[in-house]
């Protein structure tokens, strides 16, 4: 039982980590990354290759650093362009990582992959109790990442990122270094994806290119849209429920005798696609909308808030697909009503 629970929790944790990373890049900073799986694969292979030489902890840190470094390079090449182009570049990157892993046999073992990846804390407990240790390790990693990202989102860095997401031109005019902020956001997301890859490698102890398919990317997008772009709490619930549901579909195979393995996989992915589309149309803000911040959230005792255009521009509005324009008027009317009360 503990073995199955451990499997479930680790798989969900990997999904949550990837989702948190994408949520930071796309939800908070507005940068679409269709190459999620490429960064996860980088992290996993970094752990697999470095683990035996430098130990699991250093290898995990290296995975995060390598993934972040590659994100930085990719972001630097393309992020100053319109969002559409970043999406295309990242999708290409994901494919190229796949080709590299498959063909550079001398490094990655080609299609055979790499086995015997060292696991964390393996010498401390007996093999029989190891499942529980891995479960705890996965949960700790998720908790640490969640807290770090939540602090980042609430920090001035996160606030500036949301301003850039809403309107890069306004943010730039207010003196925010748009390019540097975007590259930073992409790098942070990349680091977390590297960690997710490391956890993947620790869990399976054996990796090959076939484990890293675009399915990972699709799940991450579904999780972020379901949870609500920009909301880390929403993401925890979104990713958790999706991964659990998808795990549950394994039992569907026994229930539906007519469907074979390939069809079941197709059914799952097709449903993820339908889910993405339906959520975008019916509930674009997701389950948990990013909290709508107002001027008075930042300046509670400040009566001259109306004189602070910078504060008004930086207070992030919820990413509301239905009303692209009117929220500024809305904020003004609110401020003026406060003034009339005074």
């Amino acid at each position, binding site marked *: 039982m503990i073995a199955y629970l451990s499997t479930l929790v680790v798989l969900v944790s990997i999904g949550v980590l990837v989702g948190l990373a994408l949520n930071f890049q796309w939800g908070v900073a507005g940068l679409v990354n*269709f190459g999620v799986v490429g960064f996860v694969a980088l992290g996993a292979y970094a752990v697999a290759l470095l683990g035996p030489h430098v130990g699991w902890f250093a290898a995990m840190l290296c995975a995060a650093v390598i993934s972040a470094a590659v994100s930085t390079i990719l972001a630097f090449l393309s992020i100053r*362009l319109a969002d559409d182009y970043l999406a295309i570049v990242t999708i290409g990157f994901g*494919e190229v990582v796949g080709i590299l892993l498959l063909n550079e046999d001398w490094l990655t073992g080609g299609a055979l992959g790499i086995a015997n990846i060292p696991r964390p804390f393996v010498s401390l407990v007996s093999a029989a109790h190891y499942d529980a240790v891995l479960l705890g390790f996965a949960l700790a990693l998720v908790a640490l990442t969640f807290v770090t990202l939540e602090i980042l989102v609430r920090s001035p860095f996160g606030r500036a990122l949301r301003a850039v997401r809403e309107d*890069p031109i306004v943010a730039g005019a207010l003196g925010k270094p748009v390019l540097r902020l975007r590259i930073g956001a992409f790098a942070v997301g990349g680091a977390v994806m590297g960690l997710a890859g490391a956890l993947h490698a620790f869990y399976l102890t054996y990796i090959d290119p076939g484990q890293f398919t675009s399915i990972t990317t*699709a799940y991450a997008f579904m999780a972020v849209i379901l949870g609500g772009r920009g909301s880390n709490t929403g993401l925890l619930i979104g990713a958790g429920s999706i991964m659990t549901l998808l795990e549950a579909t394994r039992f569907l195979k026994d229930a539906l005798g007519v469907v074979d393995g390939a069809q079941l996989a*197709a059914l799952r992915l097709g449903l993820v696609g339908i889910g993405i589309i339906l959520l975008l149309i019916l509930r674009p803000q997701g389950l948990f909308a990013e909290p709508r911040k107002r001027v008075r959230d930042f300046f509670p005792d400040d009566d001259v808030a109306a004189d602070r255009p910078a504060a008004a521009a930086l207070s992030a509005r919820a990413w509301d697909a239905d009303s692209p324009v009117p929220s500024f008027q809305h904020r003004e009317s609110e401020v003026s009503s406060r003034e009339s009360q005074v």
Partner: protein
Amino acid sequence: MVGQLIVDGLATGLLLALPSLALTVVFGILKFPNFAIGATLTLGAYAAWVANTFLQLPLFAAGAVAALVVAAVCVLSDMLVFARLRDAGSIVLLVASMGLSLVLENICRFSFGNATRNFDVAIERPIRWHGLRISHEQLTSAVTVVVCVVLVQLVIYGSPLGRAMRATADNPTLAAVRGVERETIVRITWVLAGALLAIAGVLAGLDRAVDPLLGWSYQIPAFAAAILGGLGSPFGAVVGALVIGLAEELSVLVLPTNYRQAVSFAIILVLLLMRTQGLLGAKAVRR
């Protein structure tokens, strides 16, 4: 050797011309990159395969059936998905098109499985001409693509409909003031894109074999071609496709064949660094 590579490159490039044309016309009118082109192409290939195998239609007729079916699917997906997200911004639209791509691809996989299928056509010896080997499939697809491309260019640059399309692409509000209905133009654009993708699917299936990932392998090259030509420029897309096709085949001279697919990615990267508006595009995308 090089001569043969150039022939193969032109054939590959012509095959790419149709999907990149479809991508670029949709981008011109709706202003979002449609990530579902690969899956739509796959759907076209399967539609033609069904018509060819089960209805015993010759491939030409099967292609026409596929074009009709896929055009209908494109219009339907516009009505169900894209029309409802019209004002949501290009990021939401491109994520939605990715979702649509998952749905279409997995409908094919669910219905027909992962096995590769072949069209029911006679296998013939390749033509030899001055030491060059040209297969019948290459010849068929080259002729088909050239006819399609000429037709599309005539429609876009030489007909009242094309003028209306270009007006909508340029400035939808102004076009509406002059009596060009945007929604009608959008539907017609989807029909055009669907038909082009279906024909591309048939030709791609003829070139390789029909499987659920058929379209995916054309996705990045088609984007590279459309970007190279300047997104939104129909003539540029065709030129871009020829350049990408030649570059992919000629890369064999310096790179291992496995890395052919990485060539278009490299071209996209270099292009985005050097010349963001593409070869023929005029619009700057740099922020």
